[in-house]
């Protein structure tokens, strides 16, 4: 079983009747407090990372409200990949810092996140894809990421189970890795709560009103709360929350499916991904093969239903790439929403006319790996530091005033 990966003493015990006394901070019992300096809407990894870093920097008057259960959204539904192989300098540099934070997470937050740096192996099946990898590798090397181009035989040296028929080249960075997503949330949530942040699960926001004197009032079934500042960390649901104050956010949800196999003896070191299909798979610390594939042409939806189309497509591509997996059984499949941004780049900062309402969306399926560093940078900014470069270039206004025209578009939102 998985519990026990954090082994602090329990602070709650069953009373004489056998009923548990819950730690109120996590269970979120009772009504919301009347006010808070910052209300973070969204109890996913982005919101919880922000809450933790804000509290760590001394801003503890923070309330996190989550519509569902902890990790109900994309944070609890992703493949756990953490990579530095990106196509824009800012994403490469941010992910270098995020990897460092992941390496220290167990020590800093007291929970084992099963972070394993087995590398990421991207496979190209055409010269055009090789050229694309080569261009990225050049930029990554200039940033200090040790990605290198491999010929198919060298790729086989790293994953001997591959069938390299049709593979032309591969990009490999040994310091990319995978983690187990859920403990990340438990770690941030528990440490934020320990520092004084209040967390409320099962608390949907019904409406937000901008107050004439500044700040916002958020209404929920647990009552209303007055916030001086609001952070929208709703992931794919961010446009819905922004709409409550009349702000149009142009991101949209795209369902991505994923599945997990029966556990196998550890054999697969890196995350393996194929550019042509967006196929990816890795072996978790539990031994399961976890992976997905990108099926093009599906319309935007908040549905998180599962399809046979996905399972069949994934099985077809995966058994072609690794025929040895043919007899491995799939145990379960599920889905989560990518928060698709029109230009592939995130949307951060405060929109025009709302200097106290902050966005953190449009991460196109890669918000989880970005959250450790984005949460930290956001907290630094909101507690008085000068904003990092990423905030200036990620403003919502770029979609409306043409200021985004000169920005490098991230085109490596693979998998």
């Amino acid at each position, binding site marked *: *079983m998985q519990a026990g990966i954090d082994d602090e003493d329990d602070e709650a015990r069953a009373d004489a009747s056998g009923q*548990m006394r819950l730690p109120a901070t996590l269970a979120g019992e009772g009504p919301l407090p009347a006010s808070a300096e910052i209300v973070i809407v969204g109890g996913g990894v982005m919101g919880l990372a922000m809450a933790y870093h804000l509290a760590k920097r001394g801003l503890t008057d923070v309330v996190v409200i989550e519509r569902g259960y902890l*990790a109900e959204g994309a944070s609890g539904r992703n493949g756990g990949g953490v990579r530095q192989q990106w196509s824009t300098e800012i994403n490469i540099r941010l992910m270098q810092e995020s990897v460092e934070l992941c390496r220290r997470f167990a020590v800093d937050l007291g929970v084992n996140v099963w972070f394993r740096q087995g590398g990421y192996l991207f496979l190209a099946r055409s010269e055009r894809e090789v050229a694309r990898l080569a261009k990225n590798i050049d930029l990554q090397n200039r940033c200090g990421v040790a990605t290198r181009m491999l010929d198919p035989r060298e790729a086989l040296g790293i994953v001997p189970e591959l069938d390299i028929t049709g593979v032309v080249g591969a990009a490999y960075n040994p310091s990319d890795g995978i983690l187990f997503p859920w403990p990340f949330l*438990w770690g941030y949530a528990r440490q934020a709560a320990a520092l004084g942040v209040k967390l409320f699960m099962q608390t949907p926001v019904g409406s937000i009103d901008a107050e004439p004197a500044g700040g916002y009032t958020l209404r929920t079934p647990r009552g209303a709360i007055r916030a001086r500042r609001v952070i929208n960390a709703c992931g794919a649901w961010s446009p819905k929350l922004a709409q409550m104050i009349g702000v149009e956010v142009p991101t949209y949800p795209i369902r991505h499916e994923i599945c997990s196999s029966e556990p196998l003896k550890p054999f697969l070191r890196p995350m393996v991904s194929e550019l042509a299909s967006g196929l990816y798979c890795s072996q978790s610390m539990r031994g399961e093969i976890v992976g997905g594939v990108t099926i093009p042409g599906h319309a935007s939806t908040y549905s998180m239903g599962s399809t046979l189309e996905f399972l069949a497509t994934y099985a077809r591509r995966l058994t072609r790439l690794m025929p040895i997996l043919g007899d491995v059984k799939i145990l379960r499949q599920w889905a989560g929403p990518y928060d698709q941004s029109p230009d592939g780049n995130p949307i951060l900062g405060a929109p025009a006319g709302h200097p106290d309402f902050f966005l953190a969306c449009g991460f196109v399926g890669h918000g989880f790996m970005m959250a450790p560093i984005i949460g930290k940078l956001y907290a630094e900014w909101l507690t008085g530091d000068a904003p990092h470069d990423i905030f200036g270039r990620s403003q919502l206004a770029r979609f409306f005033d043409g200021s985004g025209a000169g920005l490098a578009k991230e085109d490596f939102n693979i998998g």
Partner: protein
Amino acid sequence: MPGKIVLCRCEDMTLADLEHSVARGYTDIEEVKRYTGFGTGPCQGKECLAVVGLQLARLTGQPPSAIPPFTSRPPLAPTPLRLLARAPDAHRFPDDPPDDE
């Protein structure tokens, strides 16, 4: 004794593990599933879900009817990739080899 009472046999989850999860504040059945791993093995909850739900109701002082089952996930039974790969539902990418049947 709760450490000896197994609730989920696939994932070796005991009553003590459930108590630990609840003590941690992970009280939604979906949170318990993620924290303890119960119901994520070969049976996918078909054997353990009811007994975990019942014990969770007892520990949190709720009627059993207040504990919904967690979302059940396809496939219905563990299914080999080789079989799934032959389903006609698969999307074909431009570089897919022709079917070999």
